[in-house]
């Protein structure tokens, strides 16, 4: 049976949702349902709604909340203990070296997200059923 995963994408650019949706359709080993929130407030509301979220993919800069050093702890304070990945176009910036201290699990460059990367990340972070 194909595994099921719920990914919550938090990004203030709706185009990223379209792009990720297209990539996810090419992943056939895992049944992925993509949920999308444009703001941190709507993401928090989604987490608190009790709907299943296997993983959060968070754009590094979600206006007006700032970068992952502010947004990831905000999500953690809602009680979310699943994996959080930070998407950035410059994940090599020095402040990313402390991403684990802020509760994030991994970083990935926007240009590196492809079906292989999505499959790898889900295999790494989602427990076997």
């Amino acid at each position: 049976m194909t595994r099921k995963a719920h990914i919550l994408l938090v990004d203030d650019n709706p185009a990223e949702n379209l792009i990720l949706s297209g990539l996810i359709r090419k992943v056939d080993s895992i049944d992925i349902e993509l949920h999308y929130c444009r703001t941190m407030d709507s993401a928090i509301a989604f987490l608190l709604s009790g709907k299943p979220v296997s993983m959060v993919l968070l754009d590094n800069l979600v206006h007006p909340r700032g970068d992952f050093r502010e947004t990831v702890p905000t999500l953690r304070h809602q009680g979310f203990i699943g994996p959080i990945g930070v998407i950035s176009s410059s994940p090599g910036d020095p402040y990313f070296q402390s991403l684990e201290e802020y509760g994030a699990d991994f970083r990935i460059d926007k240009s590196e997200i492809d079906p292989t990367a999505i499959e790898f990340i889900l295999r790494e972070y989602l427990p076997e059923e």
Partner: protein
Amino acid sequence: MPVLQENHRRYDLHEELEKALNRVDFFRIFHTLALRFGFGHFGILQLGNENDACMLSSRLVLHDLPSGLAEEYDKRHRFGDAIVYKALHASNISSVWRADDPTLGPGQGLLSQLGFELLLCVPVNAATTGARYAVLFLGDGEDIEQAEHYELCYSAASAFDYFYRATLANKAGMGLTPRETEILKWISHGKTASEIALIVSVSEHTVNSHTATILKKLDVVNRTQMVAKAIREQIIQ
């Protein structure tokens, strides 16, 4: 992880390797390397004793192959009998294989069995223990040119060196980080991984990953022994 000297030349990968924190970062490095040289996928294979029964899926310590591919291969074939596997034990020279390679012989089509046209193997060693591994690159391209082959071998060996030291090496005797000590303290209070994740504001996966590192560093096999040793060595009260 000890900082290497400038004498260890890492060229273009230097900065990225120095910044790599976890398995996803190493996935990014190896996957990008594979794509840059015209391959589609990579795998890091642990080489054991040549005569041991061995399954491809259990020997891959990091890979980006499609989910279930190695497991399906293991259901049908014996990786220990593959000429490629034997060749990795025969020599440390990098090897290149094609699906129609006549040296593979009948029933030896590892590449066609996996569904690829080209395989490049880079044998590598762990600096501290000498343990043998191989970095594999798989794809459907044409043969690789000499200069590119050299560069890929050098880059793969450099990346593996960092990957081994960061994630595979036995860290027994190394000191705990403040975050590991904090997690150890909560384990000693009987908290579960999910409870600790909530308390410390990280993911459950991170807690489990830190716990595995603490087990390695304290050289113990379970949480009970971990706590007992930590108290004995006055890491926690």
